[in-house]
């Protein structure tokens, strides 16, 4: 494997931090938002420019500081990290377009602060994606927690305050209480933190210690939303919708599963987990979350809350896929990061568009809304299909690999979990679409005239919905990257 030393990953991380002083000092809203685009587009270009090398099997590395003897803040771009970065960075561009429409339509306050912390969150997200060792990962993980807090509490009212409190309590509390000691313990015993394909834990720990450490990581990275450490996510829905869309459907939550996946594959390693059968424990935990979250989602009337519980369930698909540790399941799990991202962000954009256009938050008030906002609701349908995992949407492909993966691993129980969950997904999404379009005039709560949201909001959600469909036909480069990741990690 070729290793290339380049500062590109660092620049990709920092580009959005450098833009913050410019954002603060911008005199008009237009310049501020123009600079956000400059940063977002630059970030995407830099990340995309690394793709050809990584697709050829090379790895890009960069070492910053040696903060402790033999332990550096180090960046590495491999296929897994690149896939995650390639999902988040273009979505930032699209979300910025959407933010302009949403924030201006609702005349939100403190927009400069909002754009600054958004830029900071993206830096942290890409930082997690490109971390080469556990310490760097932890650093960016915590940075993301703090950068997103002012976004979650944007409205600065009583509800935002209690939600913000819950958000930090879960995310910061679990990382300090579980991840930090587990990291330190591993460091003392092994003396290394570097992610390597077969992990570095073998031979240092007893079976029981391994189990405890594994659970400390799985629950400690609470951003992954594994039950019972999930309830920060529905609470975080008080944030403005673009935040929920990019951060709480893509960046933050996927940082959580990304961390769990990195630790399972890069710290513990496939062979060790398979030989001790500890991965099955994680599979059962994830399965419980999948089913429970889907059942709770059924009962939610707030659209964003229903989406949040759906996200919790879908995140555990990824964890389940990785924890099954068969090549196809890992491919499916990792691919699901991309597929779910595009589907779920579409759904959130739609929820925000409905709120911005009509002020409606609850599903029970959305009867007949399809006649008023046909484009939005069509995109909602596409997003739903992708999340349920039906063709012709990208979500089908990742779920297909997941299903094959359960068969490959020979664990029929988890196949059953996936199928039941798909049915539940359909049960909580499709009625929304059905009621939006098919109702009698008496039932309809809206006038029959088309009244869509401003273009700034509408275009982004059409783009993400189209990408969800396109990914079904052309799943590259995500599929290739997921394959490569599965191959290096599992060797299958």
């Amino acid at each position, binding site marked *: 494997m070729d290793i290339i030393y380049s500062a590109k990953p660092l620049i990709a991380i920092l580009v959005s931090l450098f833009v913050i002083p410019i954002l603060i000092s911008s005199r008009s809203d237009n310049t501020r938002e123009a600079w956000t685009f400059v940063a977002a587009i630059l970030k995407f270009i830099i990340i995309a420019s690394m793709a050809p090398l990584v697709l050829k099997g090379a790895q890009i590395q960069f070492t910053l500081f040696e903060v402790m*003897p033999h332990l550096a*803040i180090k960046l590495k771009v491999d296929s897994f990290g690149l896939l995650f970065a390639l999902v988040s960075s273009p979505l930032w561009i699209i979300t910025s377009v959407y933010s302009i429409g949403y924030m201006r339509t609702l005349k939100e306050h403190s927009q400069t602060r909002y754009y600054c912390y958004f830029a900071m969150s993206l830096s942290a997200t890409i930082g997690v994606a490109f971390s080469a060792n556990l310490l760097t990962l932890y650093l960016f993980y915590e*940075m993301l927690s703090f950068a997103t807090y002012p976004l979650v509490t944007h409205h600065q*009212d009583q509800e935002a305050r209690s939600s913000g409190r819950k958000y930090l309590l879960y995310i910061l509390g679990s990382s300090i209480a579980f991840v930090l000691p587990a990291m330190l313990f591993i*460091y003392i015993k092994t003396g290394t933190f570097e992610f390597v394909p077969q992990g570095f834990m073998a031979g240092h720990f007893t079976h029981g210690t391994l189990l405890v450490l594994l659970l400390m990581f799985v629950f400690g990275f609470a951003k992954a939303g594994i039950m019972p450490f999930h309830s920060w996510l529905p609470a975080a829905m008080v944030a403005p919708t673009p935040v929920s869309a990019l951060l709480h459907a893509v960046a933050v939550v996927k940082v959580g599963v990304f961390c769990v996946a990195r630790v399972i594959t890069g710290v513990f390693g496939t062979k060790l987990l398979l030989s001790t059968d500890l991965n099955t424990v994680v599979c059962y935990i994830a399965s419980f979350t999948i089913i429970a979250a889907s059942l709770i989602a059924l009962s939610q009337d707030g659209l964003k809350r229903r989406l949040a519980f759906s996200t919790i369930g879908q995140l555990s698909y990824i964890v389940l896929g990785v924890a099954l540790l068969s090549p196809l399941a890992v491919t499916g799990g990792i691919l699901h990061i991309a597929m779910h991202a595009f589907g779920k962000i579409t759904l959130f954009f739609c929820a925000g568009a409905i709120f911005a256009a009509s002020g409606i938050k609850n599903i029970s008030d959305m009867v007949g809304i399809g006649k008023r906002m046909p484009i939005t609701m069509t995109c909602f349908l596409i997003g739903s299909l992708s999340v349920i995992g039906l063709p012709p949407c990208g979500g089908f492909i990742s779920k297909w690999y997941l299903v094959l993966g359960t068969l490959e691993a020979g664990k029929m129980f988890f196949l059953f979990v996936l199928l039941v969950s798909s049915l539940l997904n359909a049960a909580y999404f499709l009625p929304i679409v059905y009621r939006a379009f098919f109702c009698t005039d008496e039932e309809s709560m809206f006038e029959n005239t088309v009244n869509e949201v401003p273009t700034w909001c509408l275009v982004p959600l059409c783009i993400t919905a189209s990408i969800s469909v396109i990914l079904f036909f052309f799943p590259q480069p995500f599929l290739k990257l997921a394959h490569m990741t599965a191959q290096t990690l599992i060797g299958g």
Partner: protein
Amino acid sequence: MVQQLPALLIIVPLLTALVVAMASWISPRLCLPLTFSGLALSLAASIGVLMEVIAHGPVTYTMGGWNAPMGIVYVIDYLSSPILVVITSVAILNLISARKSVEESFPGKTGAFYSLYILFTTGMIGIVATGDAFNLYVLLEIAALTGYSLIGLGNDRAPLASLNYLFIGTIGASFYLLGVGYLYIATGTLNMADLARFMPQMADNSMVLFAFIICMTGLFIKMALFPMHGWLPNAYSFSSTAATGVIAPLTTKVMIYAMIRVGLYVFTPAYIFNTLHMSKAIVWVAIAAIVMGSLLALAQKSLLKMLTYIIVAEVGYMVGGFFLGNRMGITGATLHIINDAAMTLCLFMAAGAISYKLKDDSFASMKGLFRKMPVTMIGFGAGALAVIGIPPTCGFFSKWYLITGGMEAGQYGFVAALLFSSLVNAVLFFRIFEIAHFEPFADPHDHHHHGHSETVNEAPLSMVVPLLVVAAALIVLGIYSGDIVTKIIQSAIPAGIV
């Protein structure tokens, strides 16, 4: 020149103190520039010595040419040189930051204040630089007496708090002196290196045992180790922020230094960690300090009081880390002296700026502070993250070594206490952030315009700039903590400790 630097370190500020006192009779306006240049020279000297130590090893200076063990020697080695830089930098940064509030709080007394200020700093420098156990006591009293008067200059309740501190502080210092007296009876010398040489033959001597107990108790009182912390919260919160800004970051930390110095270089590690079986018990006291300090901090309703209890908890970190008795723990304790001084300085400077503007430091008065004083709050936030222990701030790295040390020593109680304290610190600071960020709550009907009513009313530049410098230093110290540990601290710890 380099050979004279240790003397300059002490003599320059000592003489400046006199000059400042005299200059105040001529014109009070001369005092600040004089104090500043005196401290600047000491800072330059301390950096020079640090460079020299890193390049060529420890520097020894014999005062007046009287050789040890008869004369007094100043030994600046890997342990003391970084602390000296910390002391002089803290003093000079706080001096700049405190100017406005000194002029406002002590009209007509600025000369006295600056003179005491620099004398206090001299005492602190001396404690760290000296290689003589009795001389350490003398300088301890210089620092303490000036400290009492600086604190006494505060608000109406400060004189009583200062008197209380004086009583307890004097008891502490006397204990230490008594301990040194016993050592002198047992060995006939006061020079630290000389004392350490006698130690192996003295392992069974009960007088040495008694000296150890009483010396350490004295130092524990002076550093406010729980449950001997009673003097600290009032003394630090009723005094002027100009004085606390230098006293709070330095006093407890320098006492920790004295503990490490006396422990490693007088009683020797072999004696305290192997011969005696007290370390475990002391670590448990430290655990109590961490837990109780954190809990008491939770109970406070004003910023300065809360910060003082955080100091009580932090003292527990360092005492516990040292008495773990392994290399990681002692590294953590030593590194934390530097880091905690910087963190405490940052927080007290921010608190100084806040109370300078608001004339109040209760939590209730901090509503809307993010909008009123955005830059100060950035500095405060950086300090808060460091105290919680979030990378890449320096607080994370010292905590890292301390926790690692705790795990290696099998002291899981200490590990749990550190994690607990981190979580409590997160709660403490986010409680303030919440008040400053969310309150006052807006009128629900005026959803989109709330918060705009508060206008920016930032502290003066002379407060904000040093604060931001310290905030940046917290991150720089974090990033370079690897170098600090490998190039300096590792050499400060005797080779026998693993």
